[in-house]
């Protein structure tokens, strides 16, 4: 088989074109700082050569039995700019809703929501979070590469659930209670819609569930999770379509998913 000089020439040029990529890939390995906090023998910091697999990083931690893996967090500075944008956009939308709200009661509720969101930190949490060692080790897609400084927060299992749009902001967790049971026990504030809720699980997973007597759905929410009742559609109509309800709750639930379980 004869290979033309023009063909060889093209390959040489092509390889030269790819050199800039190669230089980036062949850069010397970096060291990243890994910090473990929470249910570990003592807060510990490790310097690890990157890239390194998540399973290898998690094996470094001297984890105590109290660790609640379902609510564990992997915090990265690289996630923070996007989350800051999300927070800013969300606060702007709440402000627009306050303007659109006609009743003082609703305005007051929305101001409380605004203050709540404002007080929540930009954490850099990777969501949804799955740091369970069994799954990380046996599911290659979950065994991600760690390429930047990271903090792993392993909280104790909380004893409560959190609520938005309800009279009580928190209730004790019971494994026997479904989302519907909590919805029935915690009175809905006026201006919030009945029949369905958003759930933000402790691992950052976002779900939507029907609630009330008319559903047989048996959904549960893990300790440290959120149950969020939606505002009525009429409030969003009053913003002259500047905010859609779906869009607002997508942002709000995504924001709540970034929050970590407090000590």
């Amino acid at each position, binding site marked *: 088989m004869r290979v033309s000089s023009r063909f060889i020439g093209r*390959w040489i040029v092509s390889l030269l074109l790819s050199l800039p990529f190669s230089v980036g890939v062949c850069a010397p*390995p970096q060291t990243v700082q890994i910090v473990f906090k929470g249910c570990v023998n003592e807060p510990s910091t490790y310097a690890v050569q990157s890239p390194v697999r998540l399973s290898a990083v998690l094996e470094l931690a001297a984890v105590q039995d109290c660790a609640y893996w379902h609510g564990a967090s992997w915090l990265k500075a690289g996630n923070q700019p996007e989350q800051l944008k999300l927070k800013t956009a969300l606060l702007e939308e709440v402000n627009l809703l306050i303007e659109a709200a006609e009743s003082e009661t609703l305005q007051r509720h929305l101001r409380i929501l605004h203050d709540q969101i404002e007080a929540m930190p930009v954490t850099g949490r990777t969501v949804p979070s799955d740091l369970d060692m069994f799954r990380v080790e*046996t599911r290659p897609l979950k065994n991600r590469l760690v390429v930047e400084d990271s903090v792993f927060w392993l909280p104790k299992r909380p004893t409560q659930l959190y609520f938005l749009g309800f009279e009580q902001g928190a209730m004790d967790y019971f494994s026997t209670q479904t989302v519907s049971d909590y919805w029935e026990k915690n009175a809905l504030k006026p201006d919030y819609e009945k029949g369905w809720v958003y759930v933000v699980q402790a691992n950052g997973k976002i779900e939507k569930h029907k609630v009330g007597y008319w559903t047989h759905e048996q959904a549960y929410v893990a300790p440290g999770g959120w149950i969020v009742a939606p505002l009525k559609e009429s409030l969003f109509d009053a913003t002259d379509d500047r905010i859609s309800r779906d869009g607002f709750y997508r942002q709000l639930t995504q924001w709540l998913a970034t929050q970590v379980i407090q000590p």
Partner: protein
Amino acid sequence: MKYHQNLLLYGVLAGLVACTALLSGCGLTSAAKDESLSLSAVFKLRSLAKVEHVALSSQAAAQSLQYATLKAELDVGEVRALLVLAKNAASGQQWVGADGSGFTTWQGRITRYYTPALDLSRIEISPLYPQYGFAAAFQYGRISAPFELDNDTEQRFQVLGKATLYYDGKQPRMYWGKPTEMLQFSERIEVPSTGFTHVNYYWLDPQTFFVWESQQKWWPQMPLISIQVLKPWEAVRYP
């Protein structure tokens, strides 16, 4: 124009080839290389499933297996698999099948069950029960203990249950074609919040009290798993 298009195409192709080659070589740190080594080791372990008939043919063949191994059968879809020991820690043994599903055991009892469809991430009985329960039930006839269970799939945590272990007497069991007298224990599981009750079985060597075989189910949606140890993870006499 066509020449430039071709050049671009060759450029992209060559770039991909170069990047792939570089990623598989100099781009990996020592830690990443260790990981790829362990993955290839796991791949080798998984090929053990092909030698199941050898492992089951004789005790000597089972003993000669390279890794600690269990045979597990599920009552759903007649699934049968060999599971190799992925990790041995003070808290228990982690067994993984070819598809990444598996469970952990401690003192012969399942403490974690994982498949993509159902993840029981914690089945925890008072530590004294798994450690001394068989001996206590053997001596006194029965022993009870509460347990807690986490079901990650349904997002249910700290589900409470009760286990009661009974000594049923000596029973002959067939291992590698040979009848062997074992101690049989039955364990009644109750999870009131789900209305679930079930009876698990364990068969222990009368000399060593090692659990060589069991049938376990801890949640309504969990299949019944029959487990037989082919090669144990610790030095213990075969029955």
